[in-house]
């Protein structure tokens, strides 16, 4: 494992703009369920490629194919032009494809440096006296985190003491340090507040500047739009295609994500709400009847809840 990682590390990153990954007409079925149908996308070095879609759109399936958990039932998967058939995430990792999962990124009770080097511990000494070089691990961890603007007092502090955004950033820093050329980030900002999300987004931008390719999975257009160079939009297992940011507005992306008809329906419903609100308003103004007012409030509350009940991360 460490050998494979080292070999990736030792090779220079491909020049920006060259193709790191490509998926050609990939399909994935679970029994009779179509998880993914005829999806194509590619990832270039030095770009952030946002993978957008609502719940059940097939985002999870797609990243699991990219990260080596699943194999596509149809279609081809190419890494730097070569067709691959990964049977485990380890194989993908050995090719420099690192996946950072939303909630599995870190082990909270363990120290930061112990987490950082988990599975790839630097060792010192020989034979039975080979030991985990914790001093070096601490040094490197501190330095790597400093590079991304996270100051830690003690690298041996439990990861649980870091904020959610910092944890994600440590996980990303770890992947970058261990020679990832492709970063697959699964909803890295889903559970984060605005400031926290900004920390992570800034670090994604840094990784891009270093020439890595980043696949950024999210259902939050507002996090994806400012940073992504291209978008691939999934809906019910199919791709709407890939769009460069300059060719598409935020609103259009939202519209595609929700699916044309669904959004149209939503639009109609919203209009209906607005109309009833307006009716209620005028009615109130005219009659100031308590019953009408209560009804209008009821509608409003419903509207607010519908808005709040944003889809949970998948």
């Amino acid at each position: 494992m460490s050998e494979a990682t080292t070999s990736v590390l030792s090779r220079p990153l491909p020049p920006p703009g060259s193709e790191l990954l490509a998926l050609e007409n990939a399909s994935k079925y679970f029994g009779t369920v179509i998880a993914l149908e005829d999806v194509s996308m590619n990832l270039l070095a030095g770009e952030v490629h946002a993978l957008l879609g609502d719940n059940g759109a097939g985002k999870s399936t797609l990243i699991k194919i990219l990260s080596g958990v699943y194999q596509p039932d149809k279609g081809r998967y190419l890494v730097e032009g070569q067709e691959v058939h990964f049977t485990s995430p380890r194989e993908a990792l050995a090719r420099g494809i690192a996946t950072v999962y939303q909630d599995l990124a870190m082990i909270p009770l363990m120290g930061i440096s112990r987490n950082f080097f988990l599975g790839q511990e630097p060792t010192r000494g020989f034979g039975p006296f080979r030991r985990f070089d914790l001093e070096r691990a601490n040094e490197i961890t501190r330095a790597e985190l400093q590079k991304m603007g996270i100051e830690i007092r003690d690298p041996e502090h439990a990861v649980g003491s870091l904020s959610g955004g910092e944890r994600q950033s440590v996980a990303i820093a770890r992947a970058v340090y261990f020679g990832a050329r492709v970063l697959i980030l699964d909803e890295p900002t889903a559970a984060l507040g605005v400031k926290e999300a900004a920390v992570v987004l800034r670090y994604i931008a840094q990784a891009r500047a270093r020439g890595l390719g980043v696949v950024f999975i999210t259902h939050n257009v507002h996090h994806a739009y400012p940073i992504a160079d291209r978008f691939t939009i999934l809906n019910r297992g199919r791709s709407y295609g890939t769009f460069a940011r300059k060719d598409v507005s935020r609103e259009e992306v939202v519209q595609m994500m929700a699916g044309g008809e669904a959004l149209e329906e939503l639009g109609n419903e919203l209009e209906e709400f607005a109309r009833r609100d307006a009716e209620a308003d005028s009615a109130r103004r005219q009659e100031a009847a308590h019953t009408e007012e209560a009804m209008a409030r009821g509608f409003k509350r419903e509207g607010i809840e519908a808005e709040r009940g944003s889809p949970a991360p998948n």
Partner: protein
Amino acid sequence: MAGAVPAHSTPPPVPSTESEPHVGDSYLAGTGQHSHRSPQQGDSRLAALPAAARSGRDLRRNHRLGRVRRAGLEPGEFVSWRGTATYLEVAAQLGILAVAVALLMIAGEFDLSVGSMIGACSVIAALIPTEFGVSFWWGVVAALIFALVMGFLNGLVVLRTGLPSFIVTLASLFIIRGVTVGMTRLITGRTQVGGLQKLPGFDSAAAVFATDIPFMGAAFPISIIWWLVVAAAGSWVLMRTKFGNWIFAVGGNAIAARMVGVPVDRVKISLFMTTAAAAWLVAMIEVTNSRSADVLRGEQREFYAIIAAVIGGVLLTGGYGTVVGAVLGALIYGMVRQGVVFAGIDADWVSAVLGAMLLIAVLVNRYVRQRALGVRG
């Protein structure tokens, strides 16, 4: 263990004036009729008893952990070198187990089978040489192989079935004990094997596992050295090696650990084998000290080992703890156990004290852990 006599019905181990050399676990004051009897004597006497009564007697002789040599110690001698030797011996025998159990618990698993593993290993070590007329060392080696295989199977079943290790090893606790009792009775007609000192190779084994080291006028059993060696090795592995990092990881979050390439199954299975090997070491120490093996040896030891680990700060849910903590837990156990006796208090109260300590320790640990995670770095 139907028909087992409850532990508290035995005479309290008042510091007696017996000064036998190598008074071990099974030569308990108050059941002196077992001392220095030949196997034949014991056999006929036991044969006259119904099975239930026999196992009751077996139990009575073995229910306590690490019976101490009580060479005329008086209350108040607790702080003397001789007093220290007695509680260190108790602590050592539990401590060896507690170190291994703590490592396994940090990795997120339990091993309740260590208690009956001690009984099984002691009987195997005694039966192989007595039945086949070979050196005692063959028994020692066979017991070790048995322990490692059982540990491996424990781990394999836990990982393959995905069942909680608490349940799996609870089952193996009973299976191993039952098979040990059944097989031993089938082969020898009894539940103890005595007279081991006559076997070839016993003396050298006793030199390794049961020597006394004179120091400051007191006899310190070599089991204390074993304890320190096991503890030092365990602590080094946990804190300073790659494998140790993996132990924390598989206990903290096995899925996340697997994602970054930690061989979760290998880590857990090796630790199940480690606890079994620790049980073997304790069994060898007890067998050579008492020169006899008993199927019921090690009863309830699994709980004491967990208590020691938890008092020492090991998290029951895994992912957190130290070997040093488990060592201190065992030391506290030894001091409480012997301290109560030395203080002239009836030993029946020891369990109550231990239970209360366990509860307090868990509460304190939880508080410490919440602080460790709550304080932003």
